């Protein structure tokens, strides 16, 4: 079973990182292509260092907590994150929220970068640096927390960080190859999958933190994940049905 939970740990950190980095890539590409790469990449590097510092500082510190307190804390945090991801993904799948459009976001960011005035010939272009730094840091912060919580609870901080790092490298490589936003990535399906995993692990650890003993021990995790996935899919289907009825009745 540790192999299975390790697999889910890797998958959750990888997918969460991939989907957030696709959004960060759109910002970085728009600024880099419009205003130049030097200051943009310095901003990306600075944000990467800041995120690594957060993981390196908080990860080991969390493992000092008593195991039940750690599980309760991590479970609660994963549940708040997971339900946010699921809520957004279900509302989008049900047609109640627009899907994120990376191509439109790229045009928007490019227009802003043009409007910010010409960068100086020497020194740091603060606009490029700040936008790239902020974009990567804000998109990466949630990933950093997922890495910390997953990694510290299972004692596999290195594996979680490696999963997130490999997704970052993969997205960066695709971005460098395409030189445009990755508009065809099925972001909502990935968000739904990450939401299911965060919520499933949150339920498992949160309940253990309150003193619950799961029937079947860690095997219960598979049943929980299946239950959360089935519930999320059913909720999405019910929303689509309701939306259809609203359209048909014209109200």
């Amino acid at each position, binding site marked *: 079973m540790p192999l299975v939970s390790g697999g889910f740990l890797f998958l959750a950190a990888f997918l969460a990182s991939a989907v957030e980095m696709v959004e960060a890539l759109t910002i970085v590409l728009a600024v880099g292509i419009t205003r130049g790469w030097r200051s943009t990449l310095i901003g990306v590097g600075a944000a990467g260092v800041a995120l690594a510092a957060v993981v390196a500082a908080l990860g080991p510190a969390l493992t000092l907590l008593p195991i039940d307190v750690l599980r*309760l804390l991590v*479970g*609660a*945090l994963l*549940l*708040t994150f997971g*339900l*946010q991801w*699921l*809520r*957004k993904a*279900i*509302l989008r799948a*049900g047609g*109640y*929220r627009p899907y994120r459009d990376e191509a439109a976001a790229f045009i928007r960011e490019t227009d802003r970068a043009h409007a910010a005035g010409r960068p100086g010939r020497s020194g740091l272009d603060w606009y490029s640096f700040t936008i790239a730094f902020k974009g990567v840091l804000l998109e990466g*912060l*949630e990933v950093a927390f997922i890495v910390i919580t997953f990694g510290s609870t299972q004692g596999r901080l290195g594996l979680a960080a490696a999963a997130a790092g490999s997704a970052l490298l993969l997205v960066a490589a695709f971005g460098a190859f395409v030189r445009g936003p990755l508009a065809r990535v099925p972001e909502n399906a990935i968000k739904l999958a990450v939401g299911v995993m965060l*919520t499933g692990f*949150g*339920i498992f650890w*949160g*309940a253990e*933190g*309150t*003193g*619950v*003993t*799961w*029937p079947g021990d860690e095997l*219960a995790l598979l049943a*929980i994940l299946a*239950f*959360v996935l089935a*519930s*999320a899919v059913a*909720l999405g289907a019910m*929303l689509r049905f*309701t*939306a259809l009825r*609203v359209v048909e009745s014209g109200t």
Partner: protein
Amino acid sequence: MRAFARFWYDFVVGDDWRVAVGLAVALALSALLVELRIPAWWFLPLAVVLLLAVSVRRGARGER
């Protein structure tokens, strides 16, 4: 300072504060069931899915 607090509120609590409150209540009730020696493994999965359903329904009404 207000922007900093706002950022962390949005980061942790998100669009629906009722979900965060509901989760806290659900975790407390789970601990209470354990304390009363009532098998409690079924409770949190049901409570979480119920919270999600209520939040999605509220979100759909708000977006319509």
